[in-house]
Every structure is written in C-alpha cells, then in structure tokens.
C-alpha cells in the first residue's frame, strides 16, 4: 500500500520498527513519525483560486476523482491548511495574495503549482501581468498541462506525500 508499510515489512514488522525509532530518536523520533504519517494523509488546501485551472480542481474533488480518498480536503482559510494549490496563472495582482496566504499558513506547508501558466507562462508567455509561481513561493511539485487533468493532480498529491512529507 504505502512505502512506509513496505519498509516496515522489510525490517521485520511495525512493532520492531517502532522500537528501533524510539531507541534511535527517543520521543522526538516517535513524534516525528506520527507527524509525518498524519501530514501525509491530511493535506488540506486553502481556498485560493488563482485562475482557470480551478475548474479542474473542482473535478479533482468531485465524485470522479475524489481527492478526499487521499485525505485532501479543501479548507476555507489559510490558518488550518497546509497545501497551497496554485491553480494556474499567477497575475501580478494575485501574486501579493498568493505570497500573503502562503505566509499565513502554519508550518509545515507544501506547494503544488498547477498548469503550464504556473510553470513558465504557458499560452500567456510574455504577458505583462503575470509571474511564474516559483518567483512567488517555493514550489514542491509542478503539474504540467493546460489545464492538467485531475489524474495528474492526484499524482502530484501522491508525489508530495511520498517525496516531501516522508522526508520531513
């Protein structure tokens, strides 16, 4: 199922793995394990729609793709969320608020930049009123596409789970 379980089996079961973690890192190691597991299955994006990719984000949480299976749940405010989904183009005017919302989110936090526009500009390359996402916030995962399909977004969420959260 998950790589954590795979490792657990390889090292002789969850119990011995837990024992090893406590022996190595003590309480702090255990806490970090719990935090990583919890964060992995509970990535909550705040409601920050930056452009038209928001349409596919709607489909991502709709019945066909249902990102809630992975524990992702759209949240209204920044204070209780930890995954910033940049939904497409960031305009100059929006960049201030993307930055602001990112700064408001509590640690640890992750960023998925979605769509060709957020990567480099996409079809709007050369426009006077936009910036790539990496100039505004540190991006963890990019998703290509215009707009990316919901499958690609699910993949990106899995990528954040595996690559970023588990290496915290």
């Amino acid at each position: 199922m998950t790589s954590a379980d795979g490792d657990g089996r390889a090292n002789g079961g969850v119990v011995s793995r837990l024992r090893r973690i406590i022996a190595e890192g003590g309480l702090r190691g255990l806490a970090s394990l719990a935090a990583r597991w919890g964060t992995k299955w509970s990535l909550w994006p705040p409601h920050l729609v930056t452009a038209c990719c928001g349409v596919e984000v709607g489909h991502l949480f709709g019945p066909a793709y249902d990102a809630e299976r992975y524990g992702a749940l759209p949240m209204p405010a920044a204070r209780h969320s930890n995954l910033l989904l940049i939904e497409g183009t960031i305009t100059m005017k929006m960049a201030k608020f993307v930055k602001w919302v990112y700064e408001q989110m509590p640690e640890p936090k992750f960023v998925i930049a979605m769509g060709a526009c957020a990567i480099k500009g996409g079809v709007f390359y050369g426009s006077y009123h936009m910036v790539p996402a990496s100039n505004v916030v540190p991006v963890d995962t990019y998703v290509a596409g215009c707009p990316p399909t919901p499958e690609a977004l699910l993949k990106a969420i899995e990528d954040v789970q595996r690559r970023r959260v588990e290496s915290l």
Partner: protein
Amino acid sequence: MVAAVFFPGLITMGLYLILAVWAERKLAAKVQWRYGPLYVSEKLGGVLQTVADLLKLAFSELVVPSYTNRALFAALPAVVFFVEALPLLFIPGGPGLVMIPSGYGLLYVVAIILISTPAVVAMAWAEADKFTFIGLLRELLLEAAYEVPLVLSLLAMALVYGTDLSTYAQGLPGIAVNPVAFFVYLVATAMATSRFPFEIPDADAEIVLGPYTEYGSSLFLLAYGSNYVKLYAMALLGALVFLGGWAPLAGIAGIAVYILKASALTAFWLLLRAVYPRMRIDQALRLGWRELLFLSAAAVGVSALWRLW
C-alpha cells in the same frame, strides 16, 4: 470511575469524536457518488482519517497572533471544549453508571447547554476579526432561536418523567409519549450543534469559518472538536430522554443498546449535511420563534394531557 473513563466518559467520547467526523464524511460521500476518506487505511474504509487529521493538526505550527489578547485567544478553545463536555457529568450511561447522581440531572444538563454558547461567543470575540465577529453574532442569534424550544421540549418530557435522568429508561420511551417534543428536540439540537440547515455560525462561503476562522493547529482541533462533543452530549441526552436509553437491556448489553440509539440519532444529524443547504439567519430565527416555538408549546400541552389522563 467506569462512568468517567469508559462510558459516557473519556474513551467513548474520544472514539465518538473520531468516528463521528469520519462518519460525517463517509455518509456525505455515499450520497454524493464518492468514497470519501479511503487510502489512509484502505481495509478499514479510511476510519483512521480523523486520527491522521488530528495528528497533522497537533503537529503543525501553533500560531497565536499578536494583535489580540494572546492568553485569551489560546485558552478559550479549551474552555469551550471543557464546557461542552460538562453535561456528560450528569448523563447516566446505564443504571447507576453516572458520574454525579442527581435528582435534578436534566436541569443541570439544560443549564450547561445554555451557558456553553457564551463560551463560543467569547472565543470569537477574542479572535477579533470581522468574519469571526459576524460568526459570533450569528452564534448568539441562533442561540436566541433554539433555546426556548429546546427548554420547552425538555420541559414537556420532564412533565412526564421528572427531572431525574436515570428514571427515563423505565416505561414507555419518550418518543411514544410525545413525538412532538422529539421532533422539536431534533430540530433544536441541529441548531444548537450547527448541523446543516442551521450551519449558520460557521458558514464557510459567507464568513469563512465564523468563530473558527483564526484557529490553526491544536486550537482548531479544540474549537472544532467542541462542536462534536456537544453533539455527543446532545445525542446521548436525546437517546436517553426520547428513545429510552439502555432499555430494554442492562449492563454491557444495555450500554451497547444506548450507544446504538445515540449513533442512530447522530447519523440523522450528520446526514442532514447531504440533504440541505444552510438557511439565512433571519429565516432560522423566524423558524425558531414561529413554527418551533408553537410546536414546543404544543408538546408541553401534549405532556400535560398525558399526565392528566
């Protein structure tokens, strides 16, 4: 001691919090052609989702903004949680299984339910932002809408059974005696715990999350969890007063029956989310002071007739 630790006390309360949030998401998902939380524990249908959310929130940064009264800001969610859990002191979980046995248990429970709203209001006041202020007002106004019908529906039951909660499991269940009071209790509790047509104080499309807007990390856990603690207390109270509590069994089996009845009530309140949008505050107020008020007055009348007959 059993009552304090096991049922209706801490362990059952904790399990209820975890399972109710999960069930709410799963039930809504079922109606909405989805799975809901799944992959966190695929074989168990994602039942660990709430645990993951809890750990995530508890291990994320605790932000206490400096523009407000930091001590109050941080302390009030716990106070709200604590106050919402107090009715459990007087609700029996079975014959003799009660933390504070009292002949006036119902009165205490009603009093605590009515004083818990000011705690939420204080919490929203301490946050001091525009959306929480509106959420605070809505919480206050909604309390104004539900409290008189709620008290009257419980008065109707008290007229039949008295105020000692442990006597409610004997004889006919309250729903057979006074279905009107049961209906009023269902609606008033949906208002009190902000279940769906009355999820007005924390309406996310209008005022972000109302009283919970500013809270992150474990403060959000406490603030949001307090709602479900209240739901737990109200479900237990409703199952006891209207559905006969642990009757017809006793002992462990009685507890199981009681929990089943409370879960059925909870499932009803949770399913409202999938069926109704939220009302406007003026509509809820009018509902509370018109239809609900006269229904609850009628319920008192029904009980009086029952007594006289």
